[in-house]
């Protein structure tokens, strides 16, 4: 009874949360879209986490799965226009279901090489799959080729996107709540031992690929109907890397890590886009930027040294503060000096122009200081607030 109570409660809570999200951001068209996109990124990163973090299969073809889902939905809408008479929400759900299944089958195909390949070799195969898909779509004119494809109707629903993210998270979390989830983790940890313990590695890997791909495909369908237009350029290879980065940055195998990293990494460039002073985008001089970069590298090195070599917490704190203060001072001094260098002095850049520079710097800094990812293998949960931290991943 208690079980079903909890179960029902969490479902109601999730639906209510998604509905709340929808009502909050509904009126704000700019945010609306960003929230949907954030939900999609969360879906992508959690589903890749299942393949990459939890099962340990090094896949960097997730943009390919995303694209598959989007194109499945786009192509069906193109060749079956009578479907448009359906109510939009039901149509979107139908498309998500079809994309889910279709991309799952694609995941099966891509997952099969994983039975023979490992590590970097598997990575290049999954990368190659994404590229093949992009090139084939580019060359297939019936489905738009490089011209792209208009997808109608456009459906913009935070609720559905958020529910997709919640379901993805729930599926992965539920899996890790049970002993079956341990099979996935054991494949990641040691394939020989897991097989000796009777785990069917083949099944596990294929299931991981299928489920991971299927959720990405469903996200693709949502994306296609959100954008109303898809083309191969919408799914560049770089997206695969960004999803991978989200997984690793959050901590491989940590679902909460993936969620947080997805939201943060998606938000950084978008936040920087909007960063402004009195309505003008924040601008600073190139000299200042270079000075900041140099000081940043120095501060990072100092922080890294502190982390590795200094062991008393007071000394650590002092050094961390010193690194930050030092970085600020050095930035100021160097900026003053660099301003006199003609190549750097005159130029001004807006913060929105260097969004991706900052993005990459954050990436490097986090990886240097916390290589196991922000959450490591752990999940964020109530136990963090308890006195004794549990070291267990799951169950």
């Amino acid at each position: 009874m208690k079980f079903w109570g909890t179960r029902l409660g969490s479902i109601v809570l999730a639906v209510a949360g998604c509905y709340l999200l929808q009502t909050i951001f509904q009126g704000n068209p700019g945010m609306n879209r960003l929230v949907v996109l954030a939900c999609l990124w969360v879906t992508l990163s959690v589903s890749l986490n299942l393949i990459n973090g939890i099962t340990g299969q090094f896949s960097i073809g997730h943009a390919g799965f995303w694209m598959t889902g989007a194109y499945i939905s786009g192509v069906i809408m193109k060749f079956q226009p009578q479907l448009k008479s359906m109510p939009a929400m039901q149509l979107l759900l139908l498309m998500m279901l079809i994309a889910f299944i279709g991309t799952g089958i694609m995941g099966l195909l891509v997952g099969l090489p994983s039975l023979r390949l490992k590590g970097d070799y598997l990575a290049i195969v999954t990368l190659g799959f994404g590229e093949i898909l992009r090139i084939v779509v580019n060359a297939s004119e019936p489905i738009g080729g490089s011209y792209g494809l208009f997808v109608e109707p456009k459906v913009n629903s935070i609720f559905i996107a958020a529910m997709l993210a919640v379901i993805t998270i729930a599926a992965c979390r539920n899996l890790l709540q049970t002993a079956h989830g341990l099979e996935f983790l054991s494949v990641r940890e040691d394939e020989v031992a897991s097989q000796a313990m009777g785990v069917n590695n083949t099944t596990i890997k294929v299931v991981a690929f299928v489920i991971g791909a299927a959720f990405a495909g469903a996200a693709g369908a949502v994306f296609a109907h959100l954008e109303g237009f898809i083309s191969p350029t919408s799914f560049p290879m770089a997206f695969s890397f960004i999803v991978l980065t989200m997984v690793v940055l959050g901590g491989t195998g940590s679902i909460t890590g993936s969620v947080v990293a997805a939201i943060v990494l998606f938000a950084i460039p978008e936040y920087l886009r909007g960063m402004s002073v009195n309505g003008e985008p924040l601008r600073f001089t190139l000299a200042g930027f270079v000075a900041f970069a140099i000081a940043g590298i120095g501060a990072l090195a100092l922080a890294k040294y502190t982390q590795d070599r200094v062991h008393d917490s007071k000394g650590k704190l002092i050094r961390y503060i010193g690194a930050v203060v030092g970085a600020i001072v050095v930035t100021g001094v160097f900026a003053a000096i660099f301003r006199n260098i003609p190549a750097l002095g005159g130029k001004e850049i807006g913060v929105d122009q260097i969004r991706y520079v900052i993005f990459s710097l954050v990436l490097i800094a986090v990886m240097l200081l916390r290589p196991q990812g922000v959450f490591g293998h752990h999940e964020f949960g109530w136990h963090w607030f308890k006195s004794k931290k549990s070291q267990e991943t799951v169950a």
Partner: protein
Amino acid sequence: MIGEWTPLIAGLEFSILPQQLANGILLGSIYALIALGYTMVYGVLRLINFAHGEVFMLGAYTALLVSWKLGFTQENVAQHPDINGSILTLVLLLFCSMAVCGIVGVVIELLAYRPMRNQPRIAALITAIGVSLFLQYSGQLFLPNSPPPSINQKVNPIQGATNIPLRKASAETLNNVSTTTAAYEAAKAAFDAQLPNEESRFQLSPTGQALKETMDEANRARTDAEATANSERVEIILPNGQIVMFFSAIALMVGLHFLVNHTKIGRGMRAASHDFDTASLMGINVNRIVTFTFFIGSALAGAGAMMNATFLGTPLTTFYGVVPGVKAFVAAVLGGIGNIRGALLGGLLMGLAEALVAWAGYANMRDAIAFLILIFVLLFKPGGLLGSAAVEKV
């Protein structure tokens, strides 16, 4: 479009097969050169250096900036048409590119990879992706990229192409070509004589129009005759620049092979690639080895970049290294990553595959098929062609 694909066999033109094989080998040698950098770093550190493509990009920019310093800017060349590059200029560009790339590689290793050495490999990989993004996007702030500049062709004294005839056209067709050419020349001369009386080349009076039509007619006859001659002839035409690229690439690879197999530091590299920790216990300064590996690997990328940018003349953006980077990575994996001969083999195979796919009439699917080949090879040889799949000891 799908319906219009040439049937596979029917579309094959065997007279151009030798030429296509040559194209493939020329293309493949550059892939191989860049792949060597991936392979060396991987061999020693087991790290895929995703920033390798960006080092390549910096190499191309170095060559560009040095050539500008030498006076080969567009304006300068336009003003002084007699400026010409020499072999010495090329060597200087090559040297600068290699040196700068080598140093950049070492700096990247020092700042971004060395702190990650004892960390999970995937973390190092993400750092590499971060470095790659950083170089791409921060390069846009500092490097000239709008419009994408290209190295002026005047730098390069090696122009033209070498023609290796395999089968000549028959005397009859050659004769036909010369007659039609003579007829065309005559018609052209007549038209040119009329030209001063006309408003412009494309706004002709009836007389001019008639002359032009005669000339066009003669021209079409001439191209038809040349077409017949072309289809009879079998030849290999090799652009001189690409021949130089090919031999330089081979020379660099031979040098590298010597370095790895016959020098002290090469022995260190081999030891480190075999077992990193043991090598350090054996008194090998692995840090020095790694630094050196990065220097050499990046310098090779620099050499490839300089030759690509100078001999082929593609305009440069900060994303210049992405495509060669991915292709070379594929080549390295295909040959067996970590294996130097594998990189050469993989590169050549990739080049040949691309040329043959284009030959078969699937030019639009070229890259896709290169990847397909890779996947198939890996399925049957999971460690690449020359790599040995690591057998785990149980």
